[in-house]
């Protein structure tokens, strides 16, 4: 089902947490919502989950108001919290019944979902005794239980240690195949790992909506980095004389070579290096890392 966010604005008294935000999510897509702390991610996600009403604008799922489509949404809060006195199984039964699932169906699907999120054997443990990572997984289980067509997750891995983070990322990777996912994070590498498309939000405004490859290409500057074991002045002169090379920068035994067209020229350059028996250590297209691009976008705009 298609999710449409139309000109959503949310004001808290003076503070505008989300400002005229629009975005569309096609069925089956996986989108990362990225922004620094305080950017308005949680606020936007709460609007989508129908926890708070937007000051302006609306959110539609499959063309209908989100408040009428709650059954189709699975929501994982930033800090999932459940009744401390319930067991994991009771929690899932409770949330499942509220979503309108029959008891018989739940007795079948709960063990299934518990093993999917790696909580098998914890069915009868009290939520009180759960660690942060276990609560996160219980939260994911709860969001998946009623087989929603859209899953919204607020910082699903930010609060976890590296091992928990790895496990949860794997779970998300798994469920990505079946549903539309919108997840927020302030850590780019998390989004990079799961989602192809991402939307960058800052001060409540959308500043970028793009795919990873597009972003990488846009920021490359037709330069190739070549590292050598020893400085080879002879080959540097040859490179300089090549007709497609526009300039060579030498720093120690690292070369930064600017060419006319990366796609066409990179192999010619490599061929030349091999032909002259140059001792290569590294040969790569000079890209900003995503981290650098992200910083640039967030700081500049």
């Amino acid at each position: 089902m298609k999710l449409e966010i139309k000109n959503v604005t949310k004001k808290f008294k003076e503070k505008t947490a989300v400002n005229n935000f629009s975005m569309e999510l096609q069925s089956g897509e996986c989108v990362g919502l990225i922004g620094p702390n305080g950017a308005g991610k949680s606020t936007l996600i709460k609007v989508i989950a129908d926890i708070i009403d937007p000051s302006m604008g609306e959110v539609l799922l499959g063309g209908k108001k989100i408040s009428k489509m709650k059954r189709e949404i699975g929501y994982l809060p930033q800090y999932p919290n459940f009744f401390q006195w319930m067991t994991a199984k009771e929690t899932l039964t409770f949330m499942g019944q509220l979503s309108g699932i029959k008891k018989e169906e739940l007795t079948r699907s709960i063990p299934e979902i518990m093993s999917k999120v790696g909580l098998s054997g914890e069915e009868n443990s009290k939520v009180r005794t759960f660690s942060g990572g276990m609560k996160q997984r219980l939260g994911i289980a709860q969001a998946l239980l009623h087989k929603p067509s859209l899953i919204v997750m607020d910082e699903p891995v930010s609060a976890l240690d590296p091992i928990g983070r790895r496990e949860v990322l794997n779970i998300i990777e798994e469920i990505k195949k079946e549903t539309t996912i919108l997840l927020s994070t302030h850590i780019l590498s998390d989004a990079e790992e799961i989602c192809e498309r991402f939307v960058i939000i800052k001060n409540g405004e959308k500043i970028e909506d793009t795919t990873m490859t597009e972003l990488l290409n846009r920021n490359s500057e037709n330069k190739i980095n070549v590292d050598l074991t020893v400085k080879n002045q002879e080959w540097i002169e040859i490179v300089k004389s090549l007709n497609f090379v526009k300039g060579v920068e030498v720093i120690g035994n690292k070369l930064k070579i600017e060419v006319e067209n990366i796609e066409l020229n990179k192999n010619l350059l490599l061929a030349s290096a091999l032909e002259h028996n140059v001792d290569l250590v590294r040969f790569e297209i000079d890209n900003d890392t995503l981290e650098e691009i992200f910083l640039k976008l967030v700081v500049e705009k």
Partner: protein
Amino acid sequence: MNNFTVLAKKEFVQMVREFKVIWLPLVFIFLGLTQPVVSYYLPSILKALGGGQGITIDPSMAAQKGGEVLASTLGSQFDQLGVMIIIVSMMGVVQSDKANGMLAFILTRPVTVGSYISGKVISNYLFVACSVVLGYLVSYLYVILLFTRVDFVDLLVALLFYLMWILFIVSFTTMISTIFNSQGIIALISIVFLLGCRIVVGLSPVLDNVNPASMSKHAMEVLILGTVNTDVIWSVISTIVLSALTILVTNIWISKKKFNNE
């Protein structure tokens, strides 16, 4: 099962897990016992203690009628300590769901605000009412054991009246618990307001007609006099209307998602 039953069932399970299901009835049984026992032994204790000094014992105190003792169980025990304990046991009824995010979380599911509130109010009312009934019945048993019999119809009518006052206490506390965020403030406001309502009973007949606490006075009158004051109809109507109003306010408050906009 629809959402209302799921939510109400959750409330009951929670009461069991938190032992509330044991201690609240016990507290009311205790309160119910106290009045007859104290009334019965007070004269002989006073006599024993003051016997040598010739303190005269008020004869009316020594020979109270059963109905009067049962009435003061309602008026002196339930309406003071009892009401406070009901309030304190219910101050977190919605507030704790707000504080830990469960209210917002529950409402992300296809649950109407109405079924959430009715799940809360009805389950808590049933439970508190059962506790009150238990305490009242124990008090009744002691009264007929130690004093005179109480007419059975009077007993039931008075109970019914009193349970209406309890309904208002429960729905009012639920509303305050929805609006405010600190348990201390919730308890304070509810106790001051509800005990205040109880104290002003009897000051003015007009005020009594719109005061749910006057249901308690009517209950006591039935027990003491054995007759029903016809004014009770106004109190019944205003208690129902006011209880409905508090529930409506609670509903609007949650529907407008005020709890998220602090």
